[in-house]
């Protein structure tokens, strides 16, 4: 058992506990902070895979931007201190099966595409130059499509926010 595996299991257990706390805690802000732990754990797993560019992107986008905006939004609207009783509603019964279906679907996808394949034990870090060559080469079309989706979202947000 190599050091990476030990690291993987420690981080994975922390992530699972934090993920469970996200849905069981009785305060919106606490749930958001547990989600930060989950996302930071994902970044740490990327580091273990020697994918530092993806890890840094994870921190920048999810912790630095998404979660900050999330907390910002909840604090502006409703974020009481202490336990809240009205966080659970009748959709809870629907949520559990949906979650299970997602887990099975993603697990099947992972198993059917990789099976018993093992990751090569490399210590070389993929350079950001290789990633950008890939993005602006073979993956240019999906990249453009994604940026159009984001642009549409920005325009939509402005349309919604305008009063006149």
């Amino acid at each position, binding site marked *: 058992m190599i050091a990476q595996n030990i690291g993987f299991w420690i981080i994975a257990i922390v992530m699972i506990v934090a993920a469970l706390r996200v849905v069981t805690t009785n305060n919106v802000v606490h749930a958001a902070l547990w989600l930060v732990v989950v996302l930071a754990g994902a970044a740490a797993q990327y580091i273990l895979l020697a994918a530092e560019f993806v890890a840094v992107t994870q921190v920048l986008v999810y912790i630095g931007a998404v979660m900050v905006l999330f907390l910002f939004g909840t604090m502006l609207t409703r*974020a009481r201190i202490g336990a809240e009783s009205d966080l659970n509603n009748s959709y809870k019964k629907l949520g559990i099966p949906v979650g299970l279906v997602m887990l099975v679907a993603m697990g099947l996808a992972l198993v059917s595409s990789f099976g018993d394949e093992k990751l090569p034990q490399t210590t070389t870090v993929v350079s950001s130059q290789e990633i950008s060559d890939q993005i602006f080469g073979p993956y240019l079309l999906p990249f453009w499509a994604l940026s159009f989706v984001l642009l549409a979202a920005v325009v939509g947000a402005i349309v919604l926010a305008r009063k006149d």
Partner: protein
Amino acid sequence: MIAVLAEVPYWGQSLLRVLGGLVAVLLPAGTIVYVFLFKMMSFMQSRLGPMEAGPYGSMQLFAEVGKWLQKEDIVPERADTRIFKMAPIIVLVSTFLLVVVVPFGPEAWFTDFETGVFYALAVSSVSVLGILIAGWSSANKYSLLGGLRAAGQLIAYELPMVLAVMGVVIQAGTMNLQKIVVAQNTGLMFGIDAIGHPYVISQFFGFIIFMIAIQAELTQAPFDMPIAESELVSGYMTEYSGFRFLIFFIGEFATAGVFAMIASVLFLGGWGVPFTWFGWTSIDDVANWMNFVGPLIMFTKMMLLVFIIMWIRFSYPRLREDQLQRFAWKGLIPVALINIMFTAILKVVF
């Protein structure tokens, strides 16, 4: 790390790195507080500043720290205790994570991170999280308003900062801070190799935007709305006292120091001297003594940049909240985008 350290076992190296990180964060913070906050501000306001503790009041800092450490650790009754106590630590941790990528010499670095600039921008945004939850968990309207203002401001000014850095990355062709230093000290400017090629000259607009953005990121006046004492008491720090206030305070000035170090690496040539002065051609030729002189050069450049930050802080009145947002979104970001465009065009042409 330096060749001598190669024989030290791994745990010893790690311990030395932690110690080095503490020195690299706390020493600039203490110097900035004494030289600029105590002395420079006093002289700009025609007074002496602290004079009693030690010669010229130089021991004042230790007296202040001792005072804060003695104070009771008060948590408001209705506050969210655990998060309230956690928040200052998140802010300080983000500073320590930031200093890790700064190179201080040819071999005097903590980590040689391939995507160093990107990493620095990412971890600097973690401190927003600490400030937001500090404001929320205090159970105080002023604190909450301060936290929200801080978050809005830090998000708005992160964008021009990232975009300003982009120009340097395009010009250097790398995101590794060490290689950016080397690129500046080996480069030629108009065919003259007297002073290397510090990017403050060719990326002048980038430098100005970066300095304005870090002024706002550090919430120094004229961008100090989050802690505006005449409107919000003390913003997100209102309920903090003693040790936890001290952590916020150290975090503020340590981050100022670290951001100034990153700015000097990106724009002023970092630890290096132009390599042609001593006949070096690449980083492998650089003499070993640069590992000891380099940190001093970095420290000088950092003090110079912090001096500018503090000078502006003590001179200008506070902006209004809407002026602040308009300045970022309608002023700095378009200029930064145009700067990137021109840099990219010139990079391709030459």
